[in-house]
């Protein structure tokens, strides 16, 4: 059976500020299965965000093909939910209106979409912040709303671009716990971009380590530790060292 996401020989060329050609990705191939949790990790310039944007449909690959659910990736759509690093919530809408937006675009009736939005916000623990504007929420709460906004459309994959990079370490740990729980409850695939070794080791079933200039896959680390993972365990420490080593090679 075909994988949910199939990336085949993808290269992506960009123009640098000096007007030169720069390969953000070079000959990248990988498959991501339905229900799988994959972390893309690497230093800046390794093309991890570019790869995420190709899957989301924000751009077309210069070479190669990206397929989603058996068909070439077309325009962006609600079957591939995206959570950005920050400031992607609509500031002029309340938490509920933000979550309702995708349902509204699909033409869902008001009563039903209100109920769905309420459920989605309850699932991320924000039922009481339902009528707040983003600027009235903490960074962690905003990212919960962003996750609810993507999940309410029942996507097949959640594409997350360093979503927890801008929140403090304590909040980040809580958000990671919640993400694992949501992933297990919904069975959605997750592609999670990070530059944080601990985060990758804590979350992923598979960590794809990338290198820059040109952006390419260096190594894949399979993580077979059960969830929820214990950061204090010896296995976690070994895993952390493995990923760190792969990054530094």
């Amino acid at each position, binding site marked *: 059976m075909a994988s949910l996401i199939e990336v085949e020989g993808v290269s992506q060329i960009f123009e640098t500020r000096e007007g030169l050609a720069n390969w953000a990705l070079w000959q990248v191939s990988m498959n991501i299965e339905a229900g799988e949790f994959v972390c893309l990790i690497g230093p800046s310039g390794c093309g991890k965000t570019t790869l995420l944007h190709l899957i*989301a*449909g924000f751009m077309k690959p210069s070479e190669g093909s990206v397929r989603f659910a058996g068909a070439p990736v077309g*325009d962006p759509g*609600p079957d591939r939910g995206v959570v*950005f690093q920050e400031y992607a919530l*609509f500031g*002029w809408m309340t938490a509920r209106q933000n979550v309702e937006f995708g349902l509204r675009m699909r033409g869902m009736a008001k009563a039903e979409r209100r109920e769905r939005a309420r459920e989605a916000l309850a699932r991320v623990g924000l039922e009481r912040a339902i009528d707040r*504007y983003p*600027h009235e929420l903490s960074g962690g709460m905003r990212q919960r709303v962003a996750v609810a906004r993507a999940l309410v*459309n029942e996507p097949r994959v959640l594409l997350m671009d360093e979503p927890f990079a801008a929140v403090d370490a304590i909040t980040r740990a809580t958000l990671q716990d919640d993400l694992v729980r949501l992933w297990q409850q919904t069975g959605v695939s997750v592609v999670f971009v990070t530059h944080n070794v601990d985060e990758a080791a804590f979350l992923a079933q598979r960590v794809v380590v990338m290198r820059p200039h040109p952006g390419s896959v260096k190594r894949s680390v399979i993580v077979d530790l059960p969830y929820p993972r214990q950061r204090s365990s010896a296995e976690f420490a070994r895993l952390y060292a493995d990923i760190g080593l792969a990054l530094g090679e």
Partner: protein
Amino acid sequence: MEARLTAPPIPAAADAALTEDEKLEIENRFRRDIAAGRRRRLRRGLLLNLVGVLIFLAVWEALPRLVPGVNTQMFPPPSGVVMTLVGMMTDGSLAAHAWSSLKRVAAGFVIGSTAGILVGLLTGRLAMAQSLSDPVLHGLRSIPAIAFVPLAIVWFGLGETPKVALISWGTFFPVWISTFIGVRDVPKLYVQSALSLGASPLNIMFRVVLPAALPFVFAGLRHATAVAFVIVVAAELVGASSGLGYLISFSHLVFRIDMMFVGLLALGALGFLADAAFAALLQRVFPWYRSERNG
């Protein structure tokens, strides 16, 4: 180490002697003092404002009488202006002039700014629309709007049409420019989010891009109200039979400088009120704006 262990404990006797009531009393007195100080400074400020205005009026009242050779007809003192003002308010002529100017301003403003917002959205979102329209729009924008007054009269005659058309023309440009800038600078993440949530191009335009650019649009609208008042006066100075601009030009013909002053005063008051209304509206319509930019 030993010394620290045997050091005397911090004396708590002084704190313990204060009862809860006394503590509250001190806090209350402290808060009262702060509030009283704030009120005092506010009163002082207001008093000085008033004194400043009074000095200005007194100098204006006295100057025409003290300086030899000044004609009070040419330079009417505030007492004379107030008399004329009261007279024009009771016979309704001031309200009539103000009303016809306001109607022209409102009609022209609505037409001009609606067009400005739509064209700003189009040129800000579509590179083709921008390239197509840039030379013409920027060229026309560079011509002062009041230079078109004679042309408007030739084309549209002496009725309401030339005035409304001129104001529409003049308000279009500031609204277009600021909408264009706001739309162009809408964070890419907003558009990408909307796309991945399944929004159509039209929904992205009106539910995402326009609200995101609204603070800029609003700045343009505010600027446009000021422009509208400049143009309405210019248009009414020639070829009108009502309006504050007409009142001023008529006063000139009949040599009633006091009436002219009343017209100027009314224009100042209307302009000030329009701008204050905008500022108040901004706070009500965008409670999220300032906090978002800061936070």
